[in-house]
């Protein structure tokens, strides 16, 4: 397992980039997980989670 951290201010495109990377890695047969420390979990739709067999963990406080 390798940890990849995507930092930036809110609205900088972190979730959008992560979603894209997950799909690109899935095309290579790689599985991903996501830990979100910001109010962004809803950005990962149920369809997206199901498609990529993805688990999202939400952590509050930053």
């Amino acid at each position, binding site marked *: 397992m390798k940890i990849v*951290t995507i930092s930036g201010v809110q609205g900088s495109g972190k979730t959008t980039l992560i979603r894209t990377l997950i799909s*690109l890695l899935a095309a290579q047969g790689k599985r991903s997980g996501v830990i*979100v420390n910001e109010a962004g979990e809803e950005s990962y739709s149920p369809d997206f989670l199901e498609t990529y067999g993805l688990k999202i963990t939400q952590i509050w406080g930053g």
Partner: protein
Amino acid sequence: MATSLVASIKDYRRNIQPDFLFIEPSEMVVTSEMRKVAAMGRRDVSYDSGPFITLMDGPAFPTLWQERQPLLLGHLEGADLVAVSKSDLMDAGEIEKINHTLNDHCRDIIQLSVHSGLGLEEVMKAIVTSD
């Protein structure tokens, strides 16, 4: 936050074992703090750490740099890769100004646009090869 994050990392490593675990920290968490958290978890379980990627919101950068520079510097310091996001929404002159400013604070800067695909190859390369 650090304790919860480390506990979650361990849980993924022990019970789910994905190839890649993406962490999207709160905007108030700076890169040096994330490095400490990643190192903390490695005392107890084994995993690879990196890269630490920082996104700079390209179109909003001038305002953000003026109003929140200490926070942005915290994101920049220690980053393995800095990506100027939404680069497709800026012209060459605006991009050059941002690069000029960022060059004083970090080495590896790329232009990124998830919309157009610009820079994704570099990001993927950093993810797959770095440790």
